[in-house]
């Protein structure tokens, strides 16, 4: 970079540091605020006195959560769902990406399948038919509705397929000469070679499964089967559907909520994300680049 030390340039520099600092604070403050509310005295939090730091100190909400079976149940369902859902989707994605990455002379129907896939990505039956289909399979109220309903993201198939196509052909040829069938080529050559892209996709899939609340809301009939996000959604955000809600009633509703307890639950739900985030960060940037920027 060229050094530029005029007054204007230095003013810009300082202003820039300040502006970016404010943006940085805007992204971290909401998390800090939630944490502060969760450990403040209940009366202070309910009166809206907490702004920059906790007022008073109380771990009551966290003690209450320890005794809340429903919360832990939801947490456990979310973990199961994330592990199973990510594993399933990743396996399917890789299995589809490998044949589609083969040259056309090896796999004549390739483009037909590709078009079916893309069509399914862009067009869908809509909410109601989707719901009725899953109901017909008798998956409602089972964890499999969440695992399978999330399904195989076609976009990730395309991402991995493009990556496979860019691997040197000689790898495949050498393995075949050594007597490897398609399965062992995939599992023993291609997959080990594409660890970075698979890690990125796996991380995005698990973030999706951890954060998803809607399938949990629609496909689970009993609150005991809700994953964590749905549980929290029902607890904190949900406002009963009624056409004649007045602003006064709305205010009443927000008075009823137990702010410190809710904040504590939200904070705990964020913790897994905050823990994996530093590891995740290494991969997602390169993952996006692979998918987005092509020369």
């Amino acid at each position, binding site marked *: 970079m060229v050094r530029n030390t005029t007054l*204007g340039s230095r003013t810009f520099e300082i202003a820039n540091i300040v502006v970016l600092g404010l943006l940085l604070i805007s992204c971290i403050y909401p998390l800090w605020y939630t944490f502060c509310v969760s450990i403040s005295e209940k009366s202070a939090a309910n009166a809206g006195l907490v702004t920059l730091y906790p007022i008073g100190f109380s771990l009551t909400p966290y003690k209450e959560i320890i005794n809340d079976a429903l919360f832990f149940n939801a947490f456990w369902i979310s973990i199961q769902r994330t592990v199973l859902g990510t594993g399933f989707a990743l396996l399917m994605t890789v299995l589809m990406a490998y044949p589609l990455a083969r040259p056309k002379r090896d796999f004549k129907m390739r483009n037909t399948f590709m078009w079916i896939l893309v069509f399914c990505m862009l067009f869908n039956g809509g909410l109601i038919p989707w719901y009725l289909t899953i109901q017909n399979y008798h998956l409602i109220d089972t964890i499999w509705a969440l695992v399978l309903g999330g399904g195989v993201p076609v976009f990730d198939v395309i991402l991995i397929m493009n990556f496979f196509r860019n691997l040197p052909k000689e790898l495949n040829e050498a393995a075949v000469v050594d007597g490897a069938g398609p399965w062992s080529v995939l599992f023993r050559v291609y997959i080990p070679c594409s660890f970075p892209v698979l890690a990125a996709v796996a991380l995005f899939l698990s973030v999706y499964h951890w954060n998803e609340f809607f399938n949990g809301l629609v496909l689970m009939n009993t609150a005991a089967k809700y994953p964590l996000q749905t549980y929290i959604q029902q607890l904190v955000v949900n406002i009963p559907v009624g056409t004649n809600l007045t602003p006064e009633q709305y205010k009443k509703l927000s008075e009823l909520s137990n702010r410190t307890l809710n904040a504590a639950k939200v904070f705990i739900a964020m913790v897994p994300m905050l823990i994996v985030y530093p590891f995740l960060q290494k991969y997602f940037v390169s993952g996006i680049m692979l998918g987005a920027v092509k020369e």
Partner: protein
Amino acid sequence: MLLPGMVWLVMFSIVPMFGILMAFQDFNPGAGLLKSEWVGLENFKYMFQLNDSKTVIVNTFIIAIGKIVLNLLIPLIFAILLNELRSMRYKKLVQTVVYLPHFLSWVIMSTIVIGIFGYYGVVNTVFGMFGFDPKLFMADAGIFRQLIIGTDVWKEFGFNAIIYLAALTGINLNLYEAAAIDGANRWQLIRHVTLPALSTTVVLLGVLSLGNVLNAGFDQVYNLYNPLVYSTGDILDTWVYRLGLQNLQFSLATAAGLFKSVISFVLIFISYRLAYRYADYTVF
């Protein structure tokens, strides 16, 4: 090897497509898809006669377009500012933190947004210090759209900047040297070197986002809205959800869903074509 994936695709993606037929029926869950009465385009006619449908379509457009435009511009400005930083450590720190909100769900984020803008939230507390009366921000139809667009841009600006930052690393540093020797100041460097280098990326992202003009963000709106702001905040997806799964009007909801799917499909198809023709970009 394609088999498992294809089986899944048929079961969970293609089978539901037959359900679209419901949009042309007076669907009766007891009778099922084959025996329900056919009504042709009645559901569509009825849908467009409803007052709600106009409100919902207008809201969807306004929110989605607002998001598309600001989600292109704000990350661009942010990426350029970040690129101008001298301190690499500070740059890393800013980057790491601003990506974070993208990874938290809208359920979490809306509880936080409600906590901040709610009646007893920080905003009202701070306003109170200056002598203003507390306001019900979350129940004010007049500002709901701005709130939706603003919080979405805030949540995603860091993450959306990644692509711009990638494009910025591709700029040849010699260009800056040459321009500086010719006497360009900082602003002129940004104006004549950085911006032109990013323009193709902006155009490409803009074109690709065309397919999203009917996606105003279900998760966000669903978690933030309430009956008081339906007039400005209700969007197609939330409307379909309420019609279909809460009011059990299966046929009507499917018709509304199909309307959205078809238009989105056409728009995405056009945008991909345009991207291919003018930017030589292929998604697949």
